[in-house]
């Protein structure tokens, strides 16, 4: 545990200089730190279940940003392996594994049993030996329970796989709200609200999603209740009512509206009352996001000519420019840790990348991402990871060093990820 915490500390301190090197050539091995390597032999059990669960588990290890799954081609024993024999650890030492995970999957009626074992190779310690159960239709939840337990017990980390990603999915020309677990499993496209739904944003309690729909042929702001499935109009002024963001207390929303002439940012209560104008510029001001202490808002503004990222102190109304690199920085989001702002940065090669900057404007850097063109960042609730939408229409998750971006959707048509808080 202690060793691991030191690892994280080193990673954070070294991150900026490491990244400078990585932008030219990503060489994880050459760095002082590396991801932990996990060997995952095939699971024992019925083939229709084991393959699916193995795939989810491998993706989940990668999403955490902490692990790298060793390609099974090189395994001494590729499995199926329901359990690791004590004498066989050298098989995994040989391929450079830090951990090995074996599992037996079985089915009892509509219930799936996932008996999983995770061993630390260097010590031989058993990290996990637990049976998780789930319904047949929600098999991924057994893997999520394992991952959450392992992250908590071994690494003192929050339950990442209790969080969801809301995004927009294009189906037959219509754009609709789509909600899935943060690894892309258990996805549901939510019908209704018209044929064009945009800009989803979670409430801090995870029960509501603010979004924009053209239900009334105008971009209006609604709040969608994920429990009752009700959709209530919150702001429908003439012009745009877009890019909502809840404040950390969940009682107010910041939103872009153009009712006073050009797009400005306003603050309002959840019943639409107490509307206050936050920005005042000839330029386009949009895409607000609150700092976790609720004292400031980052937003995008073209007041410097091109769109850049700015920070607004809510008490003093002082505005500070955060980005100077490039000519097009938009869609900022504040990290839940408060130490970073992520945004869509137009790079010199004409592609977008996820940019990062400190709230004081220092340490600008760019994540390698998918290598395609990456937009619309969203921080995980613990601030360790970022989801974004790539040009192939899929949602990816990356750590803040950007050593591997993992696609969590397939088939394309996805945009605008919004990461939920940890859900009960």
């Amino acid at each position, binding site marked *: 545990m202690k060793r691991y915490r030191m690892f994280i500390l080193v990673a954070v301190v070294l991150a900026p200089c490491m990244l400078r090197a990585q932008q030219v050539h990503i060489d994880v091995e050459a760095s002082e730190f590396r991801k932990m390597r996990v060997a995952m032999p095939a699971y024992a059990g019925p083939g229709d279940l084991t393959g699916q669960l193995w795939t989810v588990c491998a993706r989940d290890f990668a999403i955490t940003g902490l692990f790298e799954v060793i390609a099974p081609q090189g395994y001494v024993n590729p499995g199926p392996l329901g359990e690791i024999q004590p004498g066989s650890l050298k098989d995994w030492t040989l391929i450079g594994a830090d951990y090995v995970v074996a599992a037996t999957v079985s089915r009892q009626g509509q219930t799936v049993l996932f008996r999983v074992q995770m061993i630390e190779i260097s010590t031989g310690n058993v990290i996990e030996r637990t049976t998780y159960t789930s319904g047949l239709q929600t098999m991924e939840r057994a893997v999520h329970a394992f991952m959450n337990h392992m992250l908590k017990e071994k690494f003192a980390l929050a339950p990442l796989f209790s969080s969801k990603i809301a995004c927009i999915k294009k*189906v*037959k020309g*219509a*754009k*609709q*709200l789509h909600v899935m677990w943060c690894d892309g499993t258990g996805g*549901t*496209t*939510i*019908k*209704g*609200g*018209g*044929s*064009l739904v*945009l*800009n989803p944003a979670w409430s801090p309690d995870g029960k509501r999603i603010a979004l*924009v729909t*053209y*239900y*009334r*042929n*105008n*971009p209006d702001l609604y709040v*969608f209740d994920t429990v*009752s*499935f*009700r*959709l*209530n*109009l919150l702001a*429908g002024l*003439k*012009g*745009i009512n*877009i*890019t909502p963001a809840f404040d950390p207390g969940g009682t107010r929303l910041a939103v*872009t509206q*153009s009712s006073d*002439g*050009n*797009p400005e940012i306003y603050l309002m209560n959840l019943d*639409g009352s107490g509307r206050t104008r936050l920005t005042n510029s000839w330029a*386009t001001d*949009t*895409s607000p996001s609150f700092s976790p202490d609720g004292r400031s808002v980052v937003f*995008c503004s073209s007041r410097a000519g*091109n*769109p850049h990222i700015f920070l607004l102190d809510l008490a003093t109304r002082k505005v500070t420019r955060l980005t100077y690199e490039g000519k*097009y920085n*938009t*869609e900022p989001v504040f990290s839940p840790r408060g130490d970073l702002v992520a945004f*869509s940065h137009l790079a010199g090669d004409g592609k*977008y990348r996820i940019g990062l900057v400190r709230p004081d404007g220092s340490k600008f850097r760019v994540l390698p991402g998918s290598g395609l063109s990456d*937009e*619309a960042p969203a921080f995980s609730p613990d601030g360790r990871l970022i989801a974004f939408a790539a040009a192939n229409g899929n949602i990816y998750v990356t750590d803040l060093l950007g050593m591997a971006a993992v696609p969590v959707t397939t088939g394309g048509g996805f*945009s*605008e990820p919004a990461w939920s808080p940890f859900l009960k």
Partner: protein
Amino acid sequence: MRNRSLVLCSMIAIGVALMLTGCPKKTLQPAATEVSQPRPPEATAPTPGEPTMQMESGVAGTSGTAPLSSAIEQARAAFEGGDVYFEYDSFDLTAQAKQVLAEKAAFLNTHPGIKVSVEGHCDERGTQEYNLALGERRAKAAQEYLVFLGINAQRLSTVSYGEERPVDPAGNEEAWAKNRRAHFVITQG
């Protein structure tokens, strides 16, 4: 006249539907992959500040076309067909844009009963959120110039679609130039 009765009929129909269903709020339903076409609005109880469904159907009803001579139809088609184009990441009106808008103003002057929705659109190169705001500024720029040319602002509404409704999805310079536009839709008259 026919328009008015259409509106009246649809208002009554919606009113009856409201009474029959009595559904308090709009709801969303989860669906696997099947997505319905844009549906008629579901019943919603009027709440303060929330326009009622009657208003919405009123707008829809007025878009029905009455019999018109072909000359008028052609003029209307030309009006709706001709877009105003913009430079990349700009909502400034070019000389050409102003000329097109002068033609729009001339048409609106000779057809005083017509109301128009000015749609602002962007190419897909910008980011989605910023483009929604940029599209709004393009629609506003076109609207304001028409007002400057003497058209009553009450006849001109605006709506931004950002990068959501490209006319040409090709993804090259030619397509992008066509997509950066203000588009005009007759909503009444």
